[in-house]
């Protein structure tokens, strides 16, 4: 059921600290960042860091790394590739989910840059959510090729250029979880609704011309919660940092299920 309020232990306290900009800073910008320390036994808080943007890289990730290196080494976040292909630094920046490494600080309107972990997720520490459930949902759609026909003896299973183009988009998903954690349906029903990322992956295998389990895959999704909690809100498609369209993929799955009834 939808719980609109955060549970008591999750509410943000007023104990946030402020780290002032150094003397002589030229272009000061304030970063308000969600903090949670599992060892403190205290509620989450929001710390404020004043950063001299004249001495900082352009992206939000650059600012986070600067904070960790120069101001507060206790700040925790995931990051790896810094070029939008690993999906590690997914977080809620300025009210929307995106990757910190490809979000420019200059694109954040308003005075302060507000940074929270991906919404409605269990927080391990600071900006690091627990993605166990998210990955389990991905695994639940069996994201691998299943075949009944024997493989060609002399090479790979081939497909036409047109068939390849059908899976080009969904294959580009990096599993950053920006879409699923932007979805209110997923917030309220993540225990039973698979969410846009897992469904996009399911669609990728459903439309793969080489896969022989299309029927079974649709059977597994034909469920009031797993698939049909999608109400086409479109937050997923708006949030996707790779410009993919999970909402369209889910719509196509619904159409395929409706279509095979005839």
């Amino acid at each position, binding site marked *: 059921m939808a719980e609109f309020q955060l549970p008591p232990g999750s509410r943000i306290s007023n104990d946030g600290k402020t780290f002032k900009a150094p003397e002589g800073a030229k272009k000061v910008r304030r970063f308000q960042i969600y903090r949670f320390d599992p060892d403190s036994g205290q509620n989450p808080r929001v710390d404020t860091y004043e950063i001299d943007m004249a001495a900082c890289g352009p992206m939000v990730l650059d600012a986070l790394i600067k904070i960790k290196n120069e101001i507060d080494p206790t700040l925790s976040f995931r990051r790896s590739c810094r070029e939008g292909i690993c999906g590690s630094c997914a977080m809620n920046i300025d009210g*929307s989910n995106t990757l910190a490494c490809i979000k420019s600080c200059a694109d954040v309107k308003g005075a302060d840059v507000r940074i929270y972990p991906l919404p409605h997720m269990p927080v391990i520490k600071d900006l690091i959510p627990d993605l166990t459930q998210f990955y389990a949902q991905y695994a639940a759609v069996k994201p691998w090729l299943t075949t009944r026909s024997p493989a060609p003896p002399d090479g790979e299973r081939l497909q036409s250029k047109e068939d390849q183009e059908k899976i080009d988009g969904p294959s580009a998903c990096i599993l950053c979880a920006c879409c699923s954690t932007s979805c209110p349906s997923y917030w309220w029903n993540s225990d039973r609704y698979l969410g846009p990322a897992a469904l996009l992956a399911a669609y990728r295998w459903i439309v793969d011309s080489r896969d022989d389990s299309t029927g079974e895959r649709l059977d597994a999704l034909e469920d009031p919660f797993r698939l049909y909690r999608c109400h086409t809100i479109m937050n997923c498609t708006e949030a996707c940092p790779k410009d993919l369209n999970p909402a369209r993929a889910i719509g196509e799955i619904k159409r395929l299920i409706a279509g095979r009834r005839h």
Partner: protein
Amino acid sequence: MAPRPLSPHLSVYRFAYTMALSILHRITGVALASGLLVLVAWLLALGNGPQAYAAFTGFMGHGLIQVVLGAWLLAFLYHLANGIRHLFWDTGRGFAKSAARRSARMVIAFVVVAGALLVYVFFCPVGGVQ
């Protein structure tokens, strides 16, 4: 170790047009369904003779009730237009970000124009509901 807190959601997520239209669709749907009770009351009044009917129309003519009826009309127009938007999605069309934004604007424009027109027709002093 303390249990893991739940990260903030509604309180931090930017309230974009996507969520606004979606929750409005649900609210107007609930309003329309519960508004059917008014229709039932109207039929009951109709069946109970001229006196009951006069009492009913007298009650419905109250200013506040008229405002609620006007809101109900707008709810109907919104639910109708956004429902058609959903039907388009069900045929696999209109999922591109630009298309979804455009159809959202069309829904709002329809509600404003048709709403203004029908509110004028039904609620202006000449004719219409008393």
